[in-house]
């Protein structure tokens, strides 16, 4: 009987611990709820099923990029090459498929291969050569931008093959395909981070690289993977964004450098690594999207949007930090 009591107490303590460790994530969901309530109070249509669907679609791009970015941040790194991986994948797909939907499979396979190559370059530079992640990914971002500008002669806006365009927004079992993909990414990301060896290794490397090495983790090889995930996620999001938007253009990736980093930080991850979860990043993506929708509602322009992005990011990391320094 004592054993049973002790066991129930440890489970209760364990649950409390899990809760306490995830306060930043819970906080970010609280912000989501508050923003949503504010929107619904201002306009009744804000909370309608249709509008929620639109918001989710808009958030999905930051969300899909966010998985790789979360993994990079967990290891104490960051991927700043997201914008031109995103743009590059979309533009290559539209140019190579050239309006012919039947060419899509080969083209997408090629783009996937190139994205993996970009991720490997970043990852190998960071893990094996020892280049700081900020600089490495900044450099590849510039190199990719240059190559794409040369390839497109600097001023192209092109269109997705019609098949992609219709598929992205087509409903399967009541939800657009784009949302199903994001849901798949969410399940995949949460499972990888919470229940796999790879997930535990990423946290381990971010918490203490030396200790992870001594515990038998092949630190270098593991450290390559987040950058590959990030590049593939960025490229996939770019192609889908083009399908959603009906157009690919050279500045399409620009907002996603700030957005993906901010989503991870608002979601409660520490930029120093070892702390955070993709579930928080999902909330971060929703926060940024809701802010955007709210400001449109109050007919405030880009300026106020950027100011509120900055303020929310600062507040979220500040609150998360208060909690960390108390612990």
């Amino acid at each position: 009987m004592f054993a049973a009591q002790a066991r129930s107490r440890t489970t209760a303590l364990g649950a409390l611990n899990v809760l306490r460790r995830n306060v930043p994530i819970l906080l970010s969901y609280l912000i989501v709820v508050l923003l949503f309530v504010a929107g619904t109070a201002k306009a009744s249509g804000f909370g309608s099923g249709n509008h929620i669907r639109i918001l989710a679609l808009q958030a999905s791009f930051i969300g899909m990029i966010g998985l790789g970015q979360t993994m990079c941040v967990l290891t104490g790194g960051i991927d700043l090459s997201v914008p031109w991986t995103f743009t590059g994948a979309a533009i290559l797909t539209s140019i190579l498929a050239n309006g012919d939907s039947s060419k899509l499979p080969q083209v997408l396979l090629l783009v996937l291969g190139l994205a993996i190559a970009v991720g490997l370059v970043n990852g190998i530079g960071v893990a094996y050569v020892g280049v700081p992640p900020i600089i490495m990914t900044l450099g590849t971002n510039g190199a990719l931008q240059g190559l794409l500008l040369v390839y497109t002669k600097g001023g192209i806006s092109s269109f997705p093959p019609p098949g992609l365009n219709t598929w992205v927004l087509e409903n399967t079992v009541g939800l657009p395909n784009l949302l199903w993909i994001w849901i798949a990414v969410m399940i995949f990301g949460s499972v990888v981070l919470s229940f796999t060896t790879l997930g535990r290794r990423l946290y381990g490397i971010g918490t203490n690289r030396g200790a992870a090495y001594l515990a038998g983790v092949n630190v270098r090889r593991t450290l390559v993977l987040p950058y590959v995930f990030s590049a593939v996620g960025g490229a996939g999001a770019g192609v889908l964004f083009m399908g959603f938007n009906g157009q690919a253009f050279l500045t399409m990736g620009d907002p996603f450098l700030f957005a993906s980093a901010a989503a991870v930080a608002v979601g409660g991850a520490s930029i120093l690594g070892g702390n955070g979860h993709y579930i928080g990043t999902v909330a971060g993506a929703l926060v940024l999207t809701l802010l955007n929708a709210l400001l449109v509602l109050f007919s405030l322009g880009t300026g106020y949007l950027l100011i509120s992005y900055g303020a929310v990011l600062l507040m979220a990391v500040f609150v998360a930090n208060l909690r960390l320094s108390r612990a």
Partner: protein
Amino acid sequence: MSGVTTAPAGLRPEDRDSPAGQLRGLVRRIDAVAVMPYLYLVGLSIALYLTQSALLTGPSALEVRATAVLPLALIAFGQTLAIYTRGIDLAVGGIVSTTTAIVASHSGAAGFSLAVLVAAVLALAAFGGLVNGLVVSLTRLQPFIVTLATWSIWGGIAFVILPVEGGATPSGLVNGLLGSILGVPKSVIGVVILLAIWFWLRNTRFIVDLKAIGSDEARARLNGVPLVRRKTQVYVLSAVLSALAGIWVAAQTASGAPTAGDQFILNSVAAVVIGGASIYGGTGSAASSIIGSIVLLMIPDLVFALKLTSFWSVFFQGFLLIVTVMISSIVITFRESRAG
């Protein structure tokens, strides 16, 4: 990796006397990372001289180059200080944008009101830097995230002040900053003053403290380095230098733009890194960062001289950045493995 000193490995006794041994010792003592920006400068100059010498030695070549380099040099100066402390200042972009927006929307300012405008812009930037510095030094938040957020805020303010590219810079400012004094372009004077400030500053307590903070913050605190004051000074200086750069950009283009500063964020970090500083703090030199800025902005000229489309320059700038950090990573690893 942080705080690697450049202590030369001792010579083996049997090497000391032979000329080959002496040469080896000399080579070993040269800091390959610190020499790199100067090698780039010489290499690019030779390449430019061989392909399109007018871009290097033409009548207004120096002025054109200095005019383009000055804003980046100003920002890279501040960025060097931030990187010394193992920090980074991404807010520079937003501050440049806001500055150009404010300056370009007060085209009527002249004389006294122009002086007030410039003073107000610099004071506003100093306030922005104060916020960055206090948040970074009083909380445990990472400079990357803090300045990412304030970049967004300042960029937003720029959009609110001047929603689209345009406006007009007060003509007094344009005439006052462009042109030459006694035949010497003012932009050249600006770069020289910046270098002079650095050569005075680098031996002061201030820079010694910054290096100490970047090498080992805990030890610096134990040695009585005033962390909060020093870090705040860094971000205030960086913001004020960015505002000066913004004023220069507004004069140079005679207008403002809400995104005018964004290009400087990554370029200033690139200039510092190409200048040989480690992003892990404690190393670097503002003079080398200025050389890094010049090198970075010579690439478009070389691309033009080689008759490639101008888009290659973005590629080569990114490529040079990667190559530089790879070389310095390898050099440092090599040096550490030698030191044992």
